[in-house]
């Protein structure tokens, strides 16, 4: 168990937003750690984040060593995932959904975007959240596109700098560039047939979700408890939207009412040997 030197700022995810944030943080001389699990994708450094606490504690592993560090502020920029295909409608203009595993595990509040058809974590203009040390930037916020990601990454760093008491002068006060609005054709959930698989990992079908709705199952977490959609290998990354849409259609309510999967740390599968690395950890 190694205790990495604490940092003023930790940035999780080194995509457009994360990299822009890291660049500005360096310019402003804010002591920063960047963690990104990608192996050899240019920006990744093999750091797999296991757990983040609202108090700034981060546990991660890299090359079979467990690490813990405390950051005064954290910018989460985990980006977006490919939109899973359920209906056969063309994907034009709507192939991504925010990766909300980490924000859900942190217990942040999420909203449903009925036009872009995905869940996104709530945050303020500068990325601030209900947890005072945690900021968001990039596609995870549901605002997609490179320009806005870079703007959000920099904006979040300025908010962090202010919070840490750094003098950043006037700084740039630019308006945010427009996000790329995705308008995926709405899923005609009522027309899907019962045999269709919604959750690949657990093999949960549309018919099963409909049966649960008829039994009085109100939200996706109840559905997960009863029929396991979202409980497998990908932890709902691929099926979260589809399960919500099918359940909402079966109940005849808005998707916002059926909710999103509650995640628990660690949000990705890890081996028992790796997990055992953390037995000495004191995570309160």
């Amino acid at each position, binding site marked *: 168990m190694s205790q990495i030197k604490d940092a003023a700022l930790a940035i999780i995810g080194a995509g457009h937003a994360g990299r822009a944030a890291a660049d500005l943080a360096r310019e402003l001389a804010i002591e920063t750690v960047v963690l990104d699990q990608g192996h050899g994708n240019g920006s990744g450094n093999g750091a797999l984040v*296991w*757990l983040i606490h609202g108090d700034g504690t981060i*546990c991660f592993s890299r090359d079979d060593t467990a690490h813990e560090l405390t950051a005064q502020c954290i910018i989460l920029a985990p980006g977006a995932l490919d939109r899973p295909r359920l209906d056969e409608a063309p994907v034009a203009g709507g192939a991504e959904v925010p990766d909300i595993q980490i924000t859900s595990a942190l*217990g942040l509040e999420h909203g449903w975007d009925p036009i872009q058809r995905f869940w996104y974590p709530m945050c303020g203009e500068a990325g601030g959240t209900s947890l005072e040390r945690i900021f968001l930037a990039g596609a995870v916020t549901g605002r997609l596109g490179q320009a806005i990601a870079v703007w959000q990454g920099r904006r979040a760093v300025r908010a962090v700098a202010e919070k840490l008491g750094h003098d950043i002068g006037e700084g740039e006060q630019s308006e945010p560039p427009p996000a790329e609005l995705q308008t995926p054709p709405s899923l005609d959930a009522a027309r899907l047939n019962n045999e269709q698989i919604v959750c690949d990992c657990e093999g949960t079908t549309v018919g099963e979700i409909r049966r649960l709705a008829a*039994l*009085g199952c*109100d939200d996706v977490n*109840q559905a997960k*408890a*009863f029929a396991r959609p979202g*409980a*497998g*290998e990908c*932890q709902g990354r691929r099926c979260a939207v589809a399960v919500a849409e099918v359940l909402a259609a079966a109940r005849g309510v808005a998707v916002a009412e059926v909710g999103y999967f509650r995640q*628990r*740390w*660690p949000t990705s*599968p*890890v*081996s*028992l*040997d790796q*997990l*055992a*690395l*953390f*037995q*000495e*950890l*004191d*995570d*309160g």
Partner: protein
Amino acid sequence: MAERNLFDAVIIGGGLHGLSTAIHLSKAGLQVVVLEKDHPGRHASGVNAGGVRRLGRDLAEVPLSVEALKVWHEIEDFVGDDCGYTTCGQIQIAESEAEHEQQRERVAKLRALGFDHERLIDGDEVRRIVPALSPPCVGAIWCAEDGAANPYRTTQAFFRTARAAGADIRLGAEVHAIERVAGHWRAQLKDDALEAPILINCAGAWADRMCRMIGDDAPLEAAAPMLMITEPVEPFITPVLGAVGRMLSFKQFENGTVMIGGGQRGRAAREVNLAGTRLRGMGNSAATVTALFPQLGAVKVMRCWAGIEAMMPDAIPVIGPSAVAEGAYHAFGFSGHGFQLSPIVGRLLCELITEGRSSLPIEAFSITRFQ
């Protein structure tokens, strides 16, 4: 039609104990309403390890546990579903002579009380039952007739059965206050109130609040035991396995996944329904498993979770009448092992309420022990 709000009994909490009590009382002809602030199975009853274990129970719990197992063996007769129950056996291993000596004393004590369900076995027999076990093992206690069930399915089946028996089960119905009105109990919801001469507190990790509302007091701690489940691996073990000297409960399911638990605790915040996981506890469980089964080191843990459970200082539940108020009863504080007891406690409460006495001894569970 206006919803009815006068009943024979109001049950607070739609976990397994509330539902079981509702089934028994409804079958006895009482008009029952169950008030559940979330949904059945949202808390301990739906997220536990499903262990159906008599092995190692507190002596006071043994008679109840033995009777409960009889119901588990015929669970379909009780709730119309097999609840995923299998008689896979439960084994508790001893890794040293001192641990095995402790087991000998335990089994002798049970024998003296007339119970022979816990059987001492030697190291050879342990290896026959669990060939995959790595470290040398001196012996074990073996309960071949114990088993495990699926908590989701069980909760669903209890829920359906209670409704079919005539119980009115209200979801999203949080009790905010309890008052005594003209010899009746009135349970106050946000925008409704239900009345009955009988009130039953099955509110799990929130039960101490209900106690205070009726004038009782119970030192309950809301804790969050954690569980984790692995990816599927080749079948290698049948019984549920625990160990004298380690915090462990270990079970492989038919689909090959392995559930790992044993009392490591996460973070509980009952005000916001939160049961969070803790890495250290999970790390400890992982280390225990790989010490016993090194071949599992590379196996991936798919999911970790925790549930909010009511723990009592003496680790046995509160079952029985209120110490101070007439017509009020409790069943809570199951301290990490109430799943197995769920078919029986409801029956005992029903007997208390309808006949004034219970068929099994429950004095040890009286709330007066904390006064």
